[in-house]
């Protein structure tokens, strides 16, 4: 893989994480993160749709006239989502029942349309796919983070396996809607703090780094 492809990949996971930094795709995030298994299933479905549609959009970018590009992107995305929906329903009916309508709602996930419009439609296939993989990984990271916190606190389990024994009193609100909102809010706060301390550290470290370069 070329250096720039690696860069695109890495960017999606951390610096331009779709959930923590760009704050997109919140609807499915909060709805499916009441357990880690649901979070992972949703991430896989989104991964499939994002990478597949980025690949196709980049491949066909010269064939799609500018005026109808959004409609074409939506047709492509909706096709991948329908494929993912039926496949999940056939292979894992229990998970499909849990996720319910949210698989179909991937089609209006702002992340996917946003990537096509901003990136895949303007870049060669390799970079577009790398970007999609990176963004999908960032999305997965965020979902699994949120899902594990909510499941551990709200159900005392991880992947459905009990962690704390029968006397643990689960903090039920965590797997209910308010828990989702508040947990994500606190996670964002933590993320902001991380970025802030990094920025400060870089600002104070900068003068000595310059000195080092000119001296050496």
């Amino acid at each position: 893989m070329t250096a720039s492809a690696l860069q695109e990949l890495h960017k999606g996971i951390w610096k331009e994480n779709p959930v923590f930094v760009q704050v997109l795709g919140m609807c499915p995030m909060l709805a499916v993160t009441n357990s880690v298994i649901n979070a992972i299933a949703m991430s896989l479905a989104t991964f499939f749709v994002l990478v597949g549609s980025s690949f196709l959009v980049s491949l066909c970018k010269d064939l799609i006239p500018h005026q109808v590009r959004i409609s074409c992107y939506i047709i492509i995305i909706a096709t991948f989502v329908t494929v993912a929906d039926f496949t999940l329903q056939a292979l894992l009916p229990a998970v499909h029942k849990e996720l319910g309508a949210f698989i179909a709602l991937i089609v209006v996930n702002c992340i996917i349309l946003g990537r096509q419009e901003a990136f895949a439609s303007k870049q060669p296939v390799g970079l577009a796919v790398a970007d999609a993989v990176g963004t999908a990984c960032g999305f997965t990271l965020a979902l699994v983070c949120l899902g594990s916190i909510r499941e551990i606190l709200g159900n005392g389990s991880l992947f459905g396996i009990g962690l704390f024994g029968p006397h643990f009193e689960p903090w039920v609100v965590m797997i209910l809607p308010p828990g989702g909102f508040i947990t994500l809010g606190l996670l964002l706060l933590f993320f902001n703090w991380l970025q802030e301390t990094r920025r400060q550290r870089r600002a104070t470290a900068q003068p000595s780094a310059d000195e080092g370069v000119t001296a050496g």
Partner: protein
Amino acid sequence: MALRQLLTRNTAEPSSTRLVVTLGIAGLLSGLAIVGIYELTLSTIADNKARELREAVFKVLPGVSRFQKLVYAEGTLQPAASQASGEEFIYAGYDANGAFVGYAIAGEGPGYQDTISLLYGYKPAQRRIVGMEVLDNRETPGSGDKIQKDPEFRENFRALAVEPKIIVVKKGTKPKPNQVDAITGATVSSNSVVSILENTNRRWLNRLPPAGTEPPLAADKP
């Protein structure tokens, strides 16, 4: 002149034909992909649904090995094609010899949080409910959702008399045959389940044929 035309043509507005053709091709390819995956997964999904239904019916009607769908039309219950939907229907369960065992009736109604949907087994000869399974609920995890998860709650419905009326009582010892023990801390959810049973009974019990005259198992049923 020709060169300039060639150069400008590429940057000019694409014609409406081009737009329509592009959309048309995109739609066509998309349609093919969707129909393809649909056909591919159709039998698996149908099998999954049938299996889920069979498991639920077997849980609420112990002793049943086959069942068929009955539709209420023109004042009587008749066997229906398995694809029929929209009309009101219930299931009739039969044992290995084809003898009638009981009905499996689906009901739903508002619970504490959202709609609860359930399936219950009913034996008209004894006028008793013999099993109840909650299929779908959004009740409070840890308390309300015990209507689905707590085996003790389900025990209430193994031999529940429907006359004169199903009543919910606080958790006590030896309730009467038409009484149901509520779940501690989930009174509303327990009451909702019983309400759904009462309402569904009110709708279906007088549509059922007299005991002993139930429609027989149609020959082609699996």
